[in-house]
């Protein structure tokens, strides 16, 4: 346990707007350790949570090229923090700042691959839109990062669809099924694709997840960049459509040639 701890979020360059609140909650987790009396509330000001955000808003400008090391106090900033902050009076605290996290640090956290399907299932028609639908959802994983317990949240932010014929599409949506929207077959959709030639194509989808980390403060800190996950291939057989006059429909006579 870190005991009396000030967790200073956002690289304590406290020239940025910061909120400070003396809370009455403990920084430790309370389970069977309460049996002996741990997890008492100390409302003496001994526990203070500080949080701040960068001036740019919710996306801290963390340079990706900066190598991350373990927790490093950032109390030495270019400016005298005492000039702008209230935390520099007699501080009976240990200042610990959570580490800056880059997208590469999240390599051990793997969000799920997107699902990929299409309509008509496994088939397409030359010159008509074939619908492709990729789906991914938000995920939360917990584990250890740079020596800290951390929760990592992945949210799908975009998709890259490779239709297998040299065409790719970057899209914010994974698409929707005709069946789900009540549209007739071969209606163009945001993610449909019209093939120009017969053949079998292997379609794949890559989802781009934005990531955020929470080191236990309850504050989600965005990590710049994307984590990607690839779907399994979806094979689509593209056929040519020819109009023909027939005596009866396949439904009426399933044994007729071509049915």
């Amino acid at each position, binding site marked *: 346990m870190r005991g009396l701890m000030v967790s200073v979020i956002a690289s304590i360059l406290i020239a940025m707007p910061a909120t400070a609140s003396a809370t*009455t909650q403990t920084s430790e987790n309370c389970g069977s350790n309460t*049996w002996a*009396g741990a997890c008492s509330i100390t409302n003496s000001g001994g526990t203070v949570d500080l949080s701040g955000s960068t001036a740019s808003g919710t996306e801290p400008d963390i340079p990706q090229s900066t190598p991350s090391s373990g927790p490093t106090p950032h109390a030495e900033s270019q400016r005298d923090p005492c000039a702008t902050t209230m935390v520099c009076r007699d501080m009976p605290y240990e200042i610990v700042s959570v580490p800056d996290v880059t997208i590469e640090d999240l390599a051990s956290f793997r969000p799920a691959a997107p699902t990929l399907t299409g309509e008509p299932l496994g088939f397409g028609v030359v010159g008509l839109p074939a619908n492709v639908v990729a789906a991914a*959802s938000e995920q939360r994983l917990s584990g250890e990062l740079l020596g800290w317990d951390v929760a990592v949240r992945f949210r799908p932010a975009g998709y890259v669809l490779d239709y297998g014929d040299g065409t790719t599409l970057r899209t914010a949506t994974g698409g929707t099924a005709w069946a*789900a929207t009540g549209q007739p077959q071969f209606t163009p959709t945001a993610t449909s694709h019209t093939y120009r030639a017969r053949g079998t194509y292997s379609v794949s989808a890559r989802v781009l997840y934005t990531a955020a980390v929470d080191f236990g403060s309850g504050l989600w800190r965005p990590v710049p960049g994307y984590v990607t996950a690839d779907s399994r291939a979806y094979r689509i057989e593209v056929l040519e459509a020819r109009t023909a006059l027939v005596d009866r429909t396949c439904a009426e006579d399933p044994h007729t040639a071509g049915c």
Partner: protein
Amino acid sequence: MLPRIVSGLVALLLAGAMVAGCSGRSAPEPSAPSAPAFGSDDEAFAAAEETYRAYVDALNQVDLSDPATFEPVFAWTTGEAKATEHKSLSQMHADGWNVSGETAILKWVPEEHQASALGAVVAIACTDISTIALVDGAGTSVVSPDRPDRNALRLTFDVAPKSATGLSLAKSVRIEDAACAD
């Protein structure tokens, strides 16, 4: 013989015929993107309460001399809460301590459910641990004289597909709550 009169002229798209007419395949139904874990807040909070009661039941079954009894506690927790239980229970086991009595849940207040995400459910619980006695190997109480009888806890639950309730206790932080005061 006159050719039979064609009763109907039907233009069929080949693929359309294969898919809709002959092969008998139906249109695919892709799973909806970003489906929330629970249909409603009530469902989420009910699952969270069930999870917490199961966790407290597991705590009440703990025999500090038998680490096998710790497993159900670990099974209902994740992340920080799990790490705390690992550390706390194994330390008490190593120290040869013995626990008796039970944790009781006095109050349960749903607080927050992020319906848009597969994310956390937050609730406040008030627990009573006044009957719990903790002694060392010599039989001497190791309970701090400052131990409160009641704890108001802000509980955070994460989605856990393997859990019977769909949730695991991720965090349990003591807060000040007058309604839960001794």
